């Protein structure tokens, strides 16, 4: 530390002359990455929580309102034969991770555009623009978990050993989102239409993933196909916390393989495109 030694006693005028410092310990790339990732993530969270009065409530309210709507439709209006009891807990266990997925993929379409000035002026590890979205949305998801617990307590859903699957579910989902984000973020810079296309696909995917229903509710032929939506396996792991019979080993294995493949493809696409992105931004 070049300044710490002389900053104490010297007059301020002298202190301001800082010497070029070869003695500064070099920072490893991993440390730079961690520090940058953390700064940007905490910036995202701080902005969200400092600008809106309700802060945390908003990040929970969206999945909660949706859960109440589907709960109302499927238990009060339609005679439900899908999912498991208590249905509201079943819904939330799928809706909260979906909110993470949906929010992170949606935001990753604007990963470079939103911070264009910073990308243009500061040398940062570039994949951090996607990683920070995955992380900040992931933190919001983890913070929202108490909501499920609260409903589980109210409706008397018993936690099972399936809760041990939770870390794996989070890890797989983070891998999947990161991989998709690394593909989408640079592509959107060149194909702005992709932003809308992604929104449309997300809306479709909401119904094409086991959120308001479970994998086991599907007819046999469809179930196998559904496993190739990696969200199927991942969401079934989340539900294992309360509904262990929802876990479909085949779907989980497929989800794990697909998440890793998508991450690999994402890294490849990102590497090839980043040079062009920096020129375009």
């Amino acid at each position, binding site marked *: *530390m*070049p*300044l*710490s030694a002389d*900053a104490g006693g010297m007059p*301020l005028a002298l*202190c*301001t*002359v*800082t*010497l*070029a*410092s*070869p003695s*500064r310990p070099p*920072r490893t790339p991993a440390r*730079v990455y961690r*520090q*940058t990732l953390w*700064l*940007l993530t905490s*910036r995202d969270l*701080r*902005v969200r929580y*400092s*600008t809106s009065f309700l802060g945390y409530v908003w990040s929970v309210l969206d999945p909660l309102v949706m859960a109440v709507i589907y709960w109302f439709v499927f238990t009060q209006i339609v005679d439900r034969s899908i999912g498991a009891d208590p249905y509201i807990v079943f819904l939330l266990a799928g809706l909260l991770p979906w909110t993470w997925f949906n929010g992170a993929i949606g935001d990753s379409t604007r990963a470079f555009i939103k911070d264009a*000035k*910073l*990308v*243009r*002026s*500061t*040398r*940062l590890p570039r994949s951090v623009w996607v990683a920070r979205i995955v992380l900040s949305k992931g933190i919001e998801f983890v913070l929202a978990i108490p909501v499920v617990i609260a409903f589980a307590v109210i409706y008397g859903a018993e936690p099972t050993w399936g809760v041990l699957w939770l870390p794996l579910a989070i890890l797989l989902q983070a891998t999947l989102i990161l991989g998709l984000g690394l593909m989408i973020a640079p592509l959107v810079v*060149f*194909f702005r239409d992709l932003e809308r296309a992604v929104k449309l696909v997300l809306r479709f995917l909401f119904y094409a993933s086991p959120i308001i229903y479970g994998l086991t509710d599907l007819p046999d032929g469809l179930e196998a196909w559904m496993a190739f939506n990696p969200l199927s396996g991942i969401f079934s792991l989340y539900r294992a916390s309360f509904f262990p019979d929802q876990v479909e080993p085949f779907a989980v294995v497929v989800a794990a393989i697909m998440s890793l493949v998508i991450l690999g493809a994402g890294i490849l696409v990102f590497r*090839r*495109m*980043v*040079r*062009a992105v*920096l*020129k375009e931004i």
Partner: protein
Amino acid sequence: MGDVVIRVEGAGIRFRRNRRGRRSFKDLFAGSNRRARPNEFWALRGVDVEVRAGEAIGVVGRNGQGKSTLLKLVAGVMLPDEGRVDVIGGVAPLIEITGGFVDDLTVRENVHLTAGLHGMTRAEIDERYDEIIDFAELRESVDTPYKHLSSGMKVRLAFSVISRLEEPILLVDEVLAVGDKAFRDKCYQRIDELLAGGRTLFFVSHNERDLTRFCTRGLYLDKGLLQLDGPIEGVLAAYNRDYGSPS
């Protein structure tokens, strides 16, 4: 003479001529193809420069001749399509200096964020925090959201943060044209201090007075090529000879 801190070897970068040029997926994935495609041009090509620690270099050239691009390559915010750019040690880039600041966060939070993104550790930031605020003359506004600052204050704050970075190389891209005279003088003084402290300066400007004040060596870029590399007076003379002198 110090060690080489910036080494640019045969660096070239090309851009598309018009924004609406047809883009295909094939284009995007054709990574380091050496040939420029028909709708592309080389903004810089075959640039070789070696900069030693402590040198103060001024980059001269008309608009659009690659000055800022060269600076961005050195800053690492763009990557060359051919050749290489090696920078030993960190850089403090005064390029679009207000870029990292967030409207909704306070001045205090912004100082921590921006300094952190540029690689300062938390301890270093805490240590220099008062210095940064005093230099920017924003002592009363530390808890004001950044968006409520006047544009002059914003630039002051940004310059203050970046010029306090503990990096051996300082990159300046014509930011000094902004701000009132008193603050500009302060900025100049700060750059003088940094130079006296042994920093390396890479300076892009159209202002001859500034260039001769800070720099000893000049680079003259024209048509994407490095035309001349020598003492700043000679470089300015060559530039004025080619394009007529305003003075």
